[in-house]
């Protein structure tokens, strides 16, 4: 699946997007964040406060317990500050 990062999450991860293949045991957004955090210090830094992170699956906001099965694109970003 494709993963995108925005704002300071992007800066901390060090890339805007990538394709990842998490193991089948990673079923929810929360579990994906935990799995990514274990991949490197950059991810651990980006996701150090997982409750702050907002997630979208296929362009729609989701909660941390949302299932990731079938997702084409998952995006992680900080709370929004537009307008």
């Amino acid at each position: 699946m494709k993963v995108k990062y925005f704002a300071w999450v992007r800066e901390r991860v060090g890339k805007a997007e990538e394709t990842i293949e998490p193991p089948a045991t990673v079923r929810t957004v929360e579990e994906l964040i935990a799995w990514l955090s274990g991949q490197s210090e950059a991810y651990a830094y980006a996701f150090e406060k997982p409750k702050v992170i907002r997630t979208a699956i296929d362009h729609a906001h989701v909660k941390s317990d949302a299932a990731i099965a079938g997702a084409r694109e998952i995006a992680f970003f900080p709370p929004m500050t537009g307008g």
Partner: protein
Amino acid sequence: MTAPVSTAPVSPCPVTIRIQQDDFDIAREIAILTGSRTDIGAVVSFSGICRGDEDSAKIAALTLEHYPGMAEEEIKRHADEATSRWPLNGVTIIHRVGRFMPGQNIVLVLTASQHRQAAFQAAEFLMDYLKTSAPFWKKEENATGTGWVEAHARDDEAAARWTRS
């Protein structure tokens, strides 16, 4: 017996959503929205402008980043909700991205209706949701460097008052 057929004309409600780097011309956008229609009695316009200070600290510039694709879709979802909640005759939402100096335009919301109440309320509803739910982020440049603007709880509270129980 046949059901009575309503002959009341249905006012069209065109929804325009644009995300762009270029500035917008409010008068021109209102003219496009109203055109030659005579069913519109009220147009409310909200402009968000880059401020020159935040909590008494000077702001040199703001950079707006967005999530292409989702930003348009998220704004559309809220515009559709607005048109279902209020009797609107048109909605225009323009959000700029890029780097802005104090005094420059960032966002425009126009709502048109037959009467002012719907236009006022819908414009406020749209702005409250733009701030808390549309995927845009501001980075601020000031004398001490650059930093991402933090979300305000007051914006979440402003959006929450529109939640229907």
